[in-house]
């Protein structure tokens, strides 16, 4: 969005033709991301509403199904995401102070956190599948499984959708970071031109915040 390069006079290299100044371009880019995050918030709030509805409809079922959630793994994942938010912020800070090496390092650290999160999340899903808690109509718990409620498939169905949508956002975030990494290596970011990196960072914080709400709702609130 912001990487046109026009060689006009008194036109900085990274300034797109339709903006008057880098300041205008940067503030437009940031505002765009904030507005976009508004829609992300509404997107997830639909899922949160659905969860609240299911919880009020089947409180015992949800309480029982939540016993299968491992709060330790969820907690570790929360810490991983919080750390990744820190590294991402430091990455933007490094770019703004023209420190390319640090930018790359922090970007890689953030991506590592993202992958670690996905790995742990996948392991959790695997554990649920092992018990037979498949989504929807495939829900067929093994006899030893603790959750046998006939409506538990709704909880697990929604759990998979919510964590799946969140995971999809992590994947998108990682994709953005790969793109940012390429652009960093091409020396595109500096103290003047950093808004794409900052927007990636904002997106990542949003993904983090959504998890901060998902975690207590799914794992802790019994």
């Amino acid at each position, binding site marked *: *969005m912001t990487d046109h390069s026009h060689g006009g006079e008194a036109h900085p290299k990274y300034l*797109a*033709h*339709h903006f*008057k100044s880098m300041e*205008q371009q940067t*503030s*437009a880019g940031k*505002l*765009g991301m904030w*507005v*976009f995050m*508004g*829609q*992300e918030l*509404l*997107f*997830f*709030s*639909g*899922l949160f*509403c*659905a969860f609240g*509805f*299911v919880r009020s*409809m*089947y409180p015992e079922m949800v309480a029982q199904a939540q016993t299968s959630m491992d709060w330790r793994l969820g907690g570790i994942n929360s810490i991983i995401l919080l750390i990744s938010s820190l590294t991402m912020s430091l990455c933007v800070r490094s770019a703004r102070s023209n420190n390319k090496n640090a930018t790359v390092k922090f970007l890689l650290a953030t991506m590592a956190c993202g992958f670690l999160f996905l790995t742990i999340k996948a392991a959790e899903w695997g554990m649920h599948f092992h018990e037979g808690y498949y*989504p*929807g*109509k*495939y829900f067929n718990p093994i006899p030893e499984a603790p959750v046998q409620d*006939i*409506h538990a*498939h*709704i909880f*697990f*169905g*929604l759990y*998979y*959708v919510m964590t799946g*949508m969140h995971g999809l956002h992590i994947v998108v975030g990682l994709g953005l970071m790969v793109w940012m990494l390429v652009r960093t290596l091409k020396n595109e970011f500096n103290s003047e031109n950093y808004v794409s990196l900052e927007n990636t960072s904002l997106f990542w914080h949003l993904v983090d915040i959504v998890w901060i709400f998902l975690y207590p709702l799914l794992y802790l609130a019994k």
Partner: protein
Amino acid sequence: MQKRDIGKPVFFADMLSSHHGMSTNYLTAKKGFLSWLFTVDHKRIGVMYFVSIALFFLVAGLFALLLRAELMQVRIPNATATSYMISADHYNEAFTFHGAIMVFLVIIPSVPATLGNFLLPLMIGAKDVAFPKLNLISFHLYIVGALFLVYTIAFGGLDTGWTFYTPYSTQTSTSVIAAVFGAFILGFASILTGVNFIVTVHKMRAPGMTWVRMPLFVWAIYATSVIQVLATPVVGVTLILVAIERLLGIGIFDSNLGGDPILFQNFFWFYSHPAVYIMILPGFGIISELVTTHSRKNIFGYKAVAISSIGIAVIGFFVWGHHMFTSGQSALASVFFSLLTYAVAVPTAIKVFSWVATLYKGSISFTTPMCYVFVFLFLFLIGGLTGIFLGALSTDVHLHNTYFVVAHFHYVMMGGTLIAWIGGIYHWWPKITGKKFNQTWGIISSIVVFIGFNLTFFPQFIMGSRGMPRRYYDYLPEYYSFHLLSSIGSFVLAVGLFIVLFNWLHSIFYGENESLANPWKGKSMEWTETAVVPIEHNFEKQPISTHGPYEFDELIKPIKAGGH
């Protein structure tokens, strides 16, 4: 610049260039089909949306004619599902396609994506929207989403109605997943356009272009964008849940599995009610521009009209329950939703009164755009007032799911939004194409459309109030005369709309070149350039706003430094 090497189809820009030959404008700056398909110029993107939307309008309109043709057949006693020209199943698919294409591919994007894209930067004195590439991505997403919907027409069909109500949508054998996926992508295109426009209005205004100097069309587009960004994601996630429900049966909407179909209705209308304001608000914006320019008067109550757009956008989020008065929701909830529904009537009425007050003692010229304003005012008034019947709990119980509802929303959606859209396209036609259009045929079209429209939909109010349910393939013979009238009206309406189409096509291919840069003597910024058709970057040099958008000649005060 791109070379014309491969055998590209001749687009109308190429033809224009041979006529003009003078300075290049946005139509002639680059050549070839690909220079259009991958342009980041908001004006070209607007034109591409216009061509696509007009095409889908035609397709969805033909579906409507098919429905009307079936309904005007003489009723056969003891008819079966195949007694009439199309079978009952095909009838269900035809009304679904009519509704889904009209709502998702035509009405929702109609004004913001075409005139909004074209005019927003021109009206606020910017070179482009804030994110030109994102704008192009939105257009490509629109096309991809549209292809999904077109796919469902060809493969598997769709018979859920445009609303995808559960549990039927999770059980029918038609291609619901492809359709909801298409609607999801279209929603994403809509969200991105909304984000783009909000940032454009905030960050790209020319020097001197304060919020109260913006044309009211910009206010309307801004309010629309807010709804697009905040409401659309909810329907996005709802459609995902419907698709997953169909695939996996997680049991959130399906009562057989322990879910609740009313939850779907709440989610769906949380978007789809604000969506009707996505549809109508930009139409209001167009009317504000047209009514002032063609009566040479400043708008009556600028701030009231501007703020009422925001008011409608905000209150519109809290009225969705009025679609569910008969769903079994609590009576208390229904009372609140009914009350809030009446509250929306206040800012809407402010607008209508303002337009009428603007006309009062104005110097009205009966141009084609102005004739469409009159058509709009009549039809929207009827549509708005019949909404009051439906917002009242006691009458809605009787009118719910009858033709009364069908007539009501056609009066506001078609009689409101699409009439305003056609009027707006006529108004800005010289700016978009650089061509003159035939005024006589323009005015004739507005009259034929007006007659045809009322003949189609007014009988539907009467039969609806007498209990004719909507979406039925067959009906009791006592409704026959109403259906016959309505069908005849729909053919008249079609003739009127074809006159519009031929008038536009005639103007493009055989029309005289427009010689005036400001044929209507408008005062807003898009008319200020000396070029008839805007150049690629809109303005020769940065424009500066020194006065409001409706300060017509007799009203302009001497401009002092620093304000007016």
